[in-house]
C-alpha cells in the first residue's frame, strides 16, 4: 500500500512487524486471547514467566484494585519449563508471531539453564530475563535492585544463548540508569521496563492486607507517569533498544513511550480491561504514524523535544 508507514522495529537480531508486544504475565502465552486478538498482527508475544521447575505462586487473594491500577501477587505461578515447552511453545508454533520467553529463576544457574535449554529451540526468538519481580522471595527483585548480582544473571544468560537477550528492569530502585548500563555491559541486547511498583492495600474492616502476601506489584494507568520517566532516563543512558511498558491503554500512550525513547511497547494490565487493546494500539499507532507523515515508525523513537 503506498503511503503506509513502515511499522517494523528492530530489537537485537529480531525485526518485529510492529512495536506492539504483550507484557509478560498478562497474556499467558496468547491462547486465551486468541478469541480477541489476531496474534499475527502483534509485534511479538512475551510469555508468562517460566521457571525450570513448576512454581505454585502465592496464596490468594492475589489481586486488589487500587485507584486507576491494580496490585498483583501472583508470584510467577507456572508449570515449569517442560510443560511450557510442550504446551505453550507447541501452540505458539502454530501462530505466525515472534515469541519472547520471559525467564524466572531462584538462582543464577536456573536463569542460565532455561536460556541454554531453549537456545536451540527455533520456536523461541528472544528471552526477557525477569530479575525484577516484586512477588517472589528469592530471585526476582532481590536481583533486580542490586547491580553485581543482577549483572551476573545477565552474564550467565548471555553465555548460555546467542538469541536476543532482553533484561527487564525493576522500578523499585534509586537509579535505573546505572543498573541498565551494568546489564548492557553484561551482554543485554535490549532492556525492558517497568515491572510493577511495590505496593500495598488494606481492608480496614478486617484490619488485614488485601493481598495474602501483604505486598504486591502495582500496574495499570496509575504508574504510567513513573514508567514513562524511567523509560526516558534509561533510553538516554544506554545505546540498546528499550521496550517500554507501564499503564499503556491506547495508542496515544504508546506514542508517549516511543517519543520518550522506547523502540517497542508492551501492553499489560489493559488486556484485562479490554482484551482487544493490543489491536487498538497497533491500529492507532499506524494511524498516528500515517497522519504525522512518517516513512518509518522508528522516526518516533526518542523524538521528544526537550
Amino acid at each position: 500500500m503506498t503511503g503506509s508507514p513502515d511499522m517494523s522495529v528492530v530489537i537485537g537480531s529480531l525485526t518485529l512487524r510492529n512495536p506492539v508486544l504483550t507484557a509478560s504475565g498478562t497474556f499467558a502465552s496468547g491462547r486465551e486471547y486468541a478469541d480477541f486478538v489476531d496474534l499475527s498482527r502483534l509485534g511479538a508475544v512475551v510469555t508468562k514467566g517460566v521457571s525450570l521447575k513448576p512454581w505454585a505462586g502465592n496464596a490468594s487473594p492475589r489481586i486488589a484494585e487500587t485507584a486507576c491500577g491494580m496490585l498483583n501477587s501472583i508470584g510467577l505461578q507456572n508449570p515449569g519449563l517442560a510443560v511450557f515447552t510442550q504446551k505453550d511453545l507447541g501452540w505458539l508454533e502454530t501462530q505466525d508471531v515472534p515469541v519472547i520467553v520471559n525467564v524466572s529463576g531462584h538462582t543464577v544457574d536456573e536463569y542460565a539453564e532455561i536460556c541454554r535449554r531453549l537456545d536451540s529451540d527455533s520456536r523461541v526468538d528472544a528471552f526477557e530475563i525477569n530479575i525484577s519481580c516484586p512477588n517472589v522471595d528469592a530471585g526476582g527483585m532481590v536481583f533486580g535492585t542490586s547491580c553485581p548480582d543482577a549483572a551476573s544473571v545477565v552474564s550467565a544468560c548471555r553465555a548460555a544463548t546467542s538469541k536476543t537477550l532482553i533484561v527487564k528492569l525493576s522500578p523499585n530502585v534509586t537509579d535505573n540508569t546505572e543498573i541498565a548500563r551494568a546489564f548492557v555491559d553484561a551482554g543485554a541486547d535490549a532492556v525492558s521496563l517497568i515491572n510493577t511498583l511495590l505496593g500495598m492495600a488494606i481492608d480496614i474492616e478486617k484490619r488485614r492486607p488485601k493481598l495474602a502476601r501483604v505486598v504486591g506489584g502495582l500496574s495499570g494507568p496509575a504508574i504510567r507517569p513513573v514508567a514513562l520517566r524511567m523509560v526516558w532516563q534509561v533510553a538516554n543512558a544506554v545505546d540498546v533498544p528499550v521496550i517500554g511498558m507501564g499503564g499503556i491503554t491506547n495508542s496515544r500512550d504508546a506514542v508517549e513511550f516511543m517519543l520518550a525513547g522506547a523502540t517497542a511497547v508492551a501492553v499489560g494490565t489493559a488486556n484485562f480491561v479490554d482484551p482487544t487493546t493490543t489491536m487498538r494500539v497497533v491500529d492507532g499507532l499506524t494511524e498516528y504514524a500515517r497522519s504525522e507523515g512518517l516513512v518509518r515508525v522508528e522516526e518516533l523513537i526518542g523524538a521528544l523535544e526537550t
Partner: protein
Amino acid sequence: MTGCCGAGEKGHAGERPSLERVDVLSNERIAEGVGLMILHARHTASLVEPGQFVHLRVDKGRDFILRRPFSVHRARGEQIEILYQVLGQGTLAMAELSCSDDIDLIGPLGHGWDVPADVNHALLVSGGLGAAPLGGLAEKLAREGVAVTCAMGAPTQERLVGLDVFEAVARRVVIATDDGSEGELGFVTGPVERLLAEGSFDIVYACGPEVMQRAVAAMCAEVGVRCQVSLERLMACGIGACLSCVVTTKDGLKRACVEGPVFDAEEVCWDVSEIPPKH
C-alpha cells in the same frame, strides 16, 4: 469495529467467548441492595449454559479499572439477566445504569453446572445472591424432567431473591432467614441437613457464601451425595490468562474463571482460605 470478534477463529464458531457491546434493557432494584439487570446480549444469550458467567465492564473513564464477573441468572432469547448485590464502586456504578445505556461484556465464560445423565432429583441450595447462578439451572433441570427441590437462605425476607424463579419450577422450596422474617429462623444448612436425611437426592448444587458451601459439601460427603459448588474469586482477566482466581483443588491449582466457577465439591481443598474479603 472491535465488536464481536474472534469467534470462529478456532473453527468452533459460536462456542467461544466474545467481547460484546450490549444494551441495558432494564435495570431495577428488586430487593434490599439487589438489582436485576436485563441485557440485550445476542451472542452470550444464545450460548450461555447455567452456571457460566460474564465479565462486565462498567468502568469506562472511572477511577477503578477492572471488569466485574457476574453469573448469568437466566438467558431468554437474546437477553440475559444479571442479579447483583450492590457492594462497592463497581456495583454502585451498575446500579446507576439505565435503559439505553450501552456497556460491554466478555461472555459466556467459565465452566457451568454439570448435569449427569442419571440425575432424577436435585437439591439446589442458595445463600443470598447464590441464587443468581442457580436460576437457569433450576429451569434447565425442570425442562429435562429432573425433580427440583430448593433450599434458600438469606439474611432477611427483604434480601431474599430468586424465589419466583424457583417456585415456578421446583417441587418444593424451603426457606431460612437469619432473622426468621421468612421461612424458618437460622441458616439454610438446617433445612439442608433435614432434606438430605430424607435420602431422595442424587445431586446437590450449592452457591452462596463459601462457609455455607463448605458446610453443604461436608454434609453431602457424609451422606454420599454428589455436590457441585460455584466458587467466587477475585478475577482480573476472566479468561484464564492472569492466574488471579486460582482455587486449590486436590489436582493442584485451578482457575475459577476457566476450570470453574463450578467445581466438584470433592475436588476442592476447603481448608485453604482463598475467599476475598467481603464486607
